[in-house]
């Protein structure tokens, strides 16, 4: 007998207060119910459960950094009910066997639905297509394919991948990074990289691949998704492609919306990420692109790393930062509090749209009678100081340590079951 929850006085997407009944995994509007656990949600906002299209769960292979269980616990704490687990595990998720394993681990953990992303090429090697169809037909029903961490830089291979996944309505999510232009790259290429003596990662290395890929997608009539867009020029290119009718979608990461490359001057690798933190003008262009829909979604690129891979000199450190537990707060701070996006917009960028791109049926649905009860309750008036030790992740590499962020996830419901309640993992 599962618990039902009567959520009273909740503001759905920031609208007028109402009551929601979550029962048998489904939403019932305004209903009353004897025996339901009552949650006073006065002042809280209800959003559809968040969907992350870009999460590194590290399992199999790097269970010292994160496991499917720990990563999905962090996801639930961040208000997510579904995450897409990137393929750059060890072994790489390039076969039906590996994606089914990750999918099954997610089901067993039960904090969040896990949708494995399949590798585009065998071993992320960029040489030969992986068995994309087998992954699509597996129990994991893979629809998103990515060599994330590496770029599918070979134009012919990218073209074939874009074409091939049409057979099962898949999408190729490109990590746009021209490899020759970024050999040894450490940070955004600009005046600061020159001063700090850190090898530059130029914006053109991202933009050149995006330009090529939107033209390829147009040419073969496929859909393309661009991971972690980080530059103003990329936003401009995607805006142009969409205007031309190319079936392209794009994501921005919370850290690129908020943080800028001047943090590299600390030489603290907690700020080392790929693509790198960019200029303030780039961050502003990303926020504008996210506001006007050029950038379709926010994706976390949650990238856990063990302490020793960050507690070292910059060049030796791993790329990546945690993101699941802070994403909604960063979006509130950078977008909602600045008047760039309302809560309906947040629901679109962090739930509806990513679910649509990932072809996930039961997530990203409206909060309405009869819909699956995947819901997050969020207190936008709260504030908190980020303490890495409180993270559910096995890793501690958050760039927001000590920062005061707005908002707090009060509860997360996955098919009507609370994974987080009163701000505590259940």
């Amino acid at each position, binding site marked *: 007998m599962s618990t039902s929850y009567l959520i009273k006085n909740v503001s759905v997407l920031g609208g007028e207060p109402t009551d929601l009944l979550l029962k048998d995994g489904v939403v019932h509007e305004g209903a009353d119910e004897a025996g339901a656990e009552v949650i006073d949600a006065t002042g809280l906002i209800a959003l559809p459960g968040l969907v992350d299209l870009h999460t590194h769960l590290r399992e199999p292979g790097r269970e010292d950094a994160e496991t499917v269980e720990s990563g999905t616990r962090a996801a639930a704490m961040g208000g997510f009910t579904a995450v897409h687990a990137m393929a750059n595990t060890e072994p790489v998720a390039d076969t039906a066997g590996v994606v089914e394993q990750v999918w099954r681990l997610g089901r067993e953990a039960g904090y969040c639905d896990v949708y494995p992303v399949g590798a585009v090429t065998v071993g992320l090697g960029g040489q030969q297509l992986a068995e994309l169809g087998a992954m699509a037909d597996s129990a994991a029903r893979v629809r998103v394919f990515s060599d994330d961490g590496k770029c599918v830089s070979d134009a012919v291979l990218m073209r074939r991948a874009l074409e091939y996944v049409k057979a099962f309505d898949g999408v190729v999510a490109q990590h746009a990074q021209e490899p020759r232009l970024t050999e040894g790259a450490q940070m955004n290429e600009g005046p600061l990289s020159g001063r700090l*003596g850190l090898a*530059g990662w130029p914006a053109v290395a991202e933009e050149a691949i995006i330009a090529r890929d939107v033209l390829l997608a147009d040419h073969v009539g496929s859909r393309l998704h661009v991971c972690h867009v980080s530059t103003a020029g990329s936003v401009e290119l995607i805006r142009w492609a969409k205007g031309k009718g190319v079936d392209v979608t794009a994501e921005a990461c919370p850290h690129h919306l908020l943080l800028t490359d001047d943090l590299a001057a600390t*030489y*603290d690798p907690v700020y080392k990420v790929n693509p790198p933190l960019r200029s303030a003008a780039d961050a502003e262009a990303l926020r504008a692109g996210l506001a006007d829909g050029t950038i379709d979604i926010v994706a976390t690129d949650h990238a856990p790393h063990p302490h020793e891979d960050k*507690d070292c000199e910059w060049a*030796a450190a791993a790329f990546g930062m945690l993101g699941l537990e802070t994403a909604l707060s960063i979006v509130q701070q950078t977008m909602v509090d600045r008047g760039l996006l309302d809560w309906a917009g947040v629901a679109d960028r962090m739930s509806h749209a990513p679910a649509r791109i990932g072809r996930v049926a039961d997530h990203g649905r409206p909060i309405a009678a009869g819909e699956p009860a995947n819901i997050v309750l969020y207190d936008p008036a709260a504030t908190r100081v980020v303490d890495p030790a409180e993270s559910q992740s096995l890793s501690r590499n958050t760039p927001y340590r000590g920062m005061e962020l707005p908002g707090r996830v009060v509860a997360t419901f996955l098919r009507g079951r609370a994974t987080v309640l009163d701000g505590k993992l259940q």
Partner: protein
Amino acid sequence: MKRHLLSAADLSRDDAELVLRTAAELRELADRPIKKLPALRGRTVVNLFFEDSTRTRISFEAAAKRLSADVINFAAKGSSLSKGESLKDTALTLEAMGADAVVVRHGASGAPHRLAHSGWVRSSVVNAGDGTHEHPTQALLDAFTMSRHLGTGPKGSLDGRRVAIVGDVLHSRVARSNALLLNTLGAEVTLVAPPTLFPVGVESWPVEISYDLDAVIPKADAVMMLRVQRERMSGGFFPTAREYSRRYGLDGRRMATLQDHTIVMHPGPMVRGMEITADVADADRSVIVEQVTNGVAVRMAVLYLLLGGSEPAVGGEE
């Protein structure tokens, strides 16, 4: 002065002039039969070298020993880049040994900064060259050398002096530190290199830039040639060594266009025949060997000022 010397930007004009003045006092020691002072007796200086650099290490070692410090040379084979012992663990080891100053050379830009600011060690950190970032004591010894030859007034001021720094600016920690320090000291710096060997954003540095060596050097008071590693060719930064030498090398023909008082410098090690020809390196106006001598005095001054105290380094004579 700050507690660490990580970048030439850490030095105010007053700081830099104090180092140069102190170095000048200490330089006199080199001409005495007994070259040793008791200033740092009982203090421990660790030379932590993750990269081979015999000349810089022995320069720091001589400097510390002439101030009577105990010197520990720690040649750390491999860094965490090559999965050796991590920088952090090495630092903790040195801390446990009671180092008062750590002189660090590392292949990764910012490694001395990490050492100084991660809470791993309490000692002063001196950057002896980090990656393609900085080499502040080299800049100090270069400024000291220039000041001796070109300085005006009682302080040996470099105000308005023109310095051309020529070569692989992109990968040069010497160029970065010199550009910053010489600017602080009032000199006018022009960096000369092919466009491929300038970093992006060099326009924001406090220097002039030029692609034309012949146009720059007749006006220069000092010409500093930077080493150009042959492996840069394979990176496609320039077509051939011969073309590089023709356009950016300092040879006898170019030397003839210099003013009479103009000095030629090189931080070493030189690649004779590449960026500098033998006749130029060995010419009277070349101060390359003197730079080495001055390096010891400047490093003594740096160690003394970071570790020592307010007392004059060479005392009791007036």
